[in-house]
């Protein structure tokens, strides 16, 4: 009975925690972008503008939820849910602290990769069901981009798996007691971060929803909370990738003095801030640059890294 209560607490704690982090991120991102651009950002609602989320939520929930007459209604309604659910499911395997994880799967890393691949469906179906050219182009770009970046994202993680000898995320964190994997797997970390940017459709790789070219890409036809779900899904994706970077390369909850959960969230927030800093710095890549970077640079680098890692492990016995 007690165990059930604890696991229910963890499940709902993670769900509510993740959704509220994503909601707060909408404000934090605007404030941080403003900080990097010599502005103030939204600072009117509440102290330092922290209650800005509330009017934003009221606006999103009360907006007319318009389904265009030319759209395929069922798929159009389903697509945002797919995006959000796949990201939320990925959080099930993230170990926040020793013992605090919704499902400590022995194939946690594979589950994460599978869910992030499924996430493409939300985008592609949304763009397809919108039945408008901008959405379709956005969806096409999204599918091509996600598929090609998925490939080396998986390979980048294999170095970590090879060293830790496990797909279990808690075991991977425990394997970093001596040295964080960002040092032996530095190339893996950099490539995973780049793949994560592409995976969450963040700025240098935000071709699927490029505002300046495709209006808003795959969610151009969405309004109200359906758009909000894509939006929150993107921020949850950023949080997820940051948490994965922390778990896989920066020792997860490990750290001196402070409790494990605090360390985990401090590191996570650092990488979220890095994502926003990248957005403030880099312009969007062109489509062909994106593809050639993925296939001609990243994939060979990652494969070489994997070979080198394997060789070192074999040589050390």
């Amino acid at each position: 009975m007690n165990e059930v209560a604890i696991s229910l607490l963890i499940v709902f704690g993670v769900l509510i925690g993740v959704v509220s982090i994503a909601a707060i991120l909408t404000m934090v991102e605007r404030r941080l972008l403003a900080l990097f651009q010599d502005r103030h950002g939204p600072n009117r609602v509440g102290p330092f503008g922290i209650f800005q989320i509330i009017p934003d939520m009221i606006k999103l929930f009360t907006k007319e939820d318009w389904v265009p007459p030319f759209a395929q209604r069922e798929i159009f309604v389903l697509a945002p849910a797919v995006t959000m659910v796949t990201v939320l499911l990925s959080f099930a395997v993230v170990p926040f602290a020793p013992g605090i994880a919704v499902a400590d799967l022995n194939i946690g890393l594979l589950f994460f990769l599978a869910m992030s691949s499924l996430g493409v469906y939300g985008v592609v179906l949304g763009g397809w069901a919108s039945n408008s050219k901008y959405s379709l182009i956005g969806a096409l770009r999204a599918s091509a981009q996600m598929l090609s970046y998925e490939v080396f994202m998986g390979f980048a993680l294999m170095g970590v798996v090879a060293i830790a000898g496990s797909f279990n995320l808690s075991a991977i964190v425990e394997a970093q007691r001596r040295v964080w994997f960002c040092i032996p797997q530095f190339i893996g970390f950099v490539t995973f971060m780049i793949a994560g940017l592409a995976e969450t459709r963040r700025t240098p790789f935000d071709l699927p929803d490029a505002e300046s070219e495709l209006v808003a890409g795959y969610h151009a036809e969405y309004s109200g909370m359906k758009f909000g779900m894509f939006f929150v899904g993107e921020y949850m994706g950023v949080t997820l990738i940051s948490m994965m970077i922390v778990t896989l390369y920066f020792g997860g909850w490990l750290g001196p003095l402070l409790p494990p959960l605090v360390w985990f969230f401090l590191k996570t927030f650092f990488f979220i801030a890095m994502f926003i800093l990248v957005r403030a710095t880099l312009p969007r890549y062109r489509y062909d640059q994106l593809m050639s970077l993925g296939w001609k640079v990243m994939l060979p680098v990652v494969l070489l890294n994997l070979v080198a890692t394997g060789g070192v492990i074999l040589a050390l016995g």
Partner: protein
Amino acid sequence: MLSVLKGMWMVFLHAFRPRVTIQYPEQKPYLPPRYRGRIILSRDPDGGERCVACYLCAVACPVDCISLQATEDESGRRYPEFFRINFSRCIFCGYCEEACPTYAIQLTPDFEMSEYRRQNMVYEKEDLLISGTGKYHDYNFYRVAGLAIAGKDKGEAENELPPVDIHSLMP
């Protein structure tokens, strides 16, 4: 790759720069003296209305937002019977100020003119007329103009010679 990192570092350093935003309602922006804002009608140093109701401002106005009616008082001074500016039309181009021969109509550094009712955007003469001289402190049209009014005949204005007797042969 290195240039990307350098760029990110530079962007990060911008977090410590002074902000360029002016936090408006608490912090007012600097408006230069010649800023073209709310339109006023000024008075001459003696307190009389400067406007002589010549209609030049109404003619110069590209959006026809100025409306007035000329009349004359018992001393012979022309003044507007009513003077009305529809600020919901006004584009603050300042042509009225340029056209004005007596420095009466002037634009001021004030833009806080929002209203909840559109009708309130129409300013009447008592809303426009101020008690001061505006940007030109010493100018008094009737004291320098050759026009005869009560208390000042022809040739009595500043820097004005008495009228020439055209029937005389003397130089």
